[in-house]
C-alpha cells in the first residue's frame, strides 16, 4: 500500500518534470535565448569595454571576476522565472486543477515544478559559463563547490518562484517580485564588485543580502577567492531552502492561492 503510493508519487513527479522540460525546450526562443543574449552583452560591455579600464579586482581581470556573478544571476533569475510563469499559467488557465484533483502528494507537485525550474536555471547557467569561457580564461578551482552552490541556489529560487505563483492573482504579480526584490538583491549581492571595496558600514548592510553568499560561494568555486566564510554560506543556502520548501508545502496543504 505504502509502496504503491510512493511509486504513484514518483510517476506523477516525473510526469511533471518531463512536461516542464519539454515546455522549456519547445519555447527555447523565449526561455533560453534571451538570457544568453543578455549575459553575452554584459560580458561585452562590462567585461571587454569597461573592464579594461577597471583593471584588476581581487587579483583577477574584471571580466574573470564578474563571470561567476553573471552565471549565478542567470541561474537565479531563470529558475525563479520558469516556475513562477509556468505554475501561475497553470493556475490562471486552471489546469492546475488536474493536479489538485489527483492523489499526487503535494511534495511531488512542488518537487516536480522545482526540477523544471532547476533544469532551466542550470541549463542557462551552463550556457552562460560556456559564453564566459569564450571571453575569458575562467579557472575552475573547486568544481564541487560550483555544482553544489548552483544546485542549492536553483532549488531555492525555484521554490521562490513557486511561492510567488501561489500568491499571484494576476500576471502583473508575476513580475513584481523579480523586478523590485530579486534584481536589486542580485546587483547588491556583489555581482560586479568585491564587497571589500565598499565602506565598512555598507559591507555590513550588504551582509543581510542572502544572494551575496551564493554569488560569493560560486566565485570561490571558480576563482578560489572569497569575501565570506564557506560554512556560513552553505548554512544560509541550506537554511533558506529548507525554510522556503516547508512554507510552500504548508501553503499547498492549506490550498492558499489555489482553493477558495
Amino acid at each position, binding site marked *: 500500500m505504502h509502496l504503491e503510493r510512493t511509486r504513484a508519487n514518483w*510517476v*506523477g513527479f516525473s510526469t511533471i518534470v518531463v512536461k516542464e522540460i519539454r515546455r522549456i525546450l519547445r519555447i527555447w526562443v523565449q526561455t533560453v535565448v534571451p538570457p544568453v543574449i543578455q549575459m553575452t552583452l554584459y560580458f561585452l560591455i562590462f567585461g571587454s569595454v569597461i573592464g579594461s579600464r577597471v583593471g584588476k579586482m581581487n587579483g583577477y581581470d574584471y571580466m574573470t571576476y564578474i563571470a561567476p556573478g553573471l552565471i549565478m544571476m542567470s541561474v537565479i533569475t531563470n529558475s525563479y522565472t520558469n516556475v513562477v510563469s509556468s505554475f501561475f499559467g497553470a493556475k490562471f488557465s486552471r*489546469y492546475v486543477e488536474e493536479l489538485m*484533483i489527483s*492523489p*499526487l502528494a503535494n511534495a511531488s507537485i512542488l518537487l516536480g515544478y522545482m526540477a523544471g525550474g532547476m533544469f532551466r536555471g542550470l541549463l542557462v547557467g551552463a550556457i552562460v559559463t560556456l559564453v564566459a569561457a569564450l571571453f575569458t580564461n575562467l579557472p575552475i578551482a573547486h568544481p564541487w563547490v560550483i555544482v553544489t552552490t548552483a544546485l542549492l541556489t536553483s532549488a531555492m529560487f525555484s521554490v521562490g518562484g513557486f511561492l510567488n505563483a501561489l500568491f499571484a492573482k494576476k500576471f502583473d504579480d508575476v513580475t513584481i517580485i523579480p523586478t523590485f526584490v530579486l534584481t536589486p538583491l542580485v546587483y547588491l549581492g556583489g555581482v560586479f564588485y568585491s564587497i571589500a571595496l565598499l565602506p565598512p558600514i555598507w559591507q555590513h548592510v550588504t551582509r543581510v543580502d542572502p544572494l551575496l553568499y551564493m554569488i560569493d560561494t560560486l566565485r570561490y568555486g571558480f576563482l578560489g577567492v572569497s569575501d565570506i566564510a564557506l560554512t556560513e554560506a552553505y548554512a544560509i543556502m541550506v537554511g533558506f531552502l529548507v525554510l522556503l520548501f516547508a512554507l510552500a508545502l504548508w501553503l499547498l496543504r492549506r490550498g492558499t492561492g489555489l482553493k*477558495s
Partner: protein
Amino acid sequence: MANTNAQPALRIENLRKTYRGGIEALRGVSIEVARGEFFALLGPNGAGKTTLIGIVASLVNKSAGSIHVFGKNADEDPAGVRSQIGLVPQEVNFNLWERVIDIIVNQAGYYGIPRREALERSERYLHQLDLWKYRNTNARALSGGFKRRLMVARALVHNPPLLILDEPTAGVDIELRRSMWVFLQQLNAEGVTIILTTHYLEEAESLCRKIAIIQHGRISEQGDMHELLESLRMETFVLDLARPLSETPPLEDFALRRIDDATLELDMCRGQNINDAFAQLSAAGVQVRSLRNKSNRLEEIFMRLVEEERNASRTHAS
C-alpha cells in the same frame, strides 16, 4: 472492519460552505449516492452545485461537514478518495496549448499510471469518444463539444468507480448531447457510479434513477426520480367544508387527508375524475362549500427550472 462493498459511493453529511465575503453557498447538505447509481443533482444557477462538486473533488475547501467516498473519509485519506473519483468540470480547464493525447497521458501520470499504460488507456477512450483523429491536435483547435469529450476521456483515464460531471451538456448541440447520454448510460451499465449536475430537466429525467434538487444551498427534495415525477403530476385540492367533520371519510382510489375540522386535502392523479371524488363525498354526507388548488412546491421548482432552461437556450441561440 466495515464492509466497503456495502458502503455507498458517496456520502455527504451536513456540508457547509461560506465563501470569503460571506456568501453561503451550501447550508447543510446531506446526500447519499448508492453504488452503481445514476444520480442527478438538479438545481438552478447559483444553487451551489459546482461548489458541492468542487468540495468533493478537493478543488474547494469546505467550511463544515464530512464526505465519504466508498467508505473512505476525505479528511483522513484524501489520496484514497481522489483516486476513486473522475471529474468533468463545468468549464474547460486543460492547457489549450497542449496536444489532446498529452493532456490525457499527463493526467494519467498524476494518478500514478506509467506512460506506457497511460498511452494504451488513452487510445481506448479517445476511440470511444471519437477523439482519436484529433489526438495530435492542439486542444484549442477543438470545438466546444469535443473539448467536453476530451474532459470526459481525461476523467476516465484512471478508471474511476465514481464519475462526476458538472453540467456536461450545457451549451452542447443536441446531437452531441444525445451521444454523450448514450456513452454515459453505457458506462453506468458497466458499473460506474455517475453523478451529474444539470439544470436541464429532460437530461435528469431521461438518464437518472435518483435525484436531488438543490436550491439556495439546501437540498429541497431527494429520492427516486419516478416517484418525484409522479408527485409532480399529482394535483392537490383544498376543500372547505360546510359542516365540521371529526374523522376522515373513506374514499376509494383517492388520497384524502383531514387537516382540521373544516378542511380536507384531496390528491388527484392525472386521469382521475374529480366528479368521482365528489360523488363519494356526497354519499358519505360531506358537503363541500368551496374548493381551491393547493400550490405545488415541486411544481414551482420545476417551473423555475424550465424557465431558466428556456432563457438559456434563447441566449445560446442568439
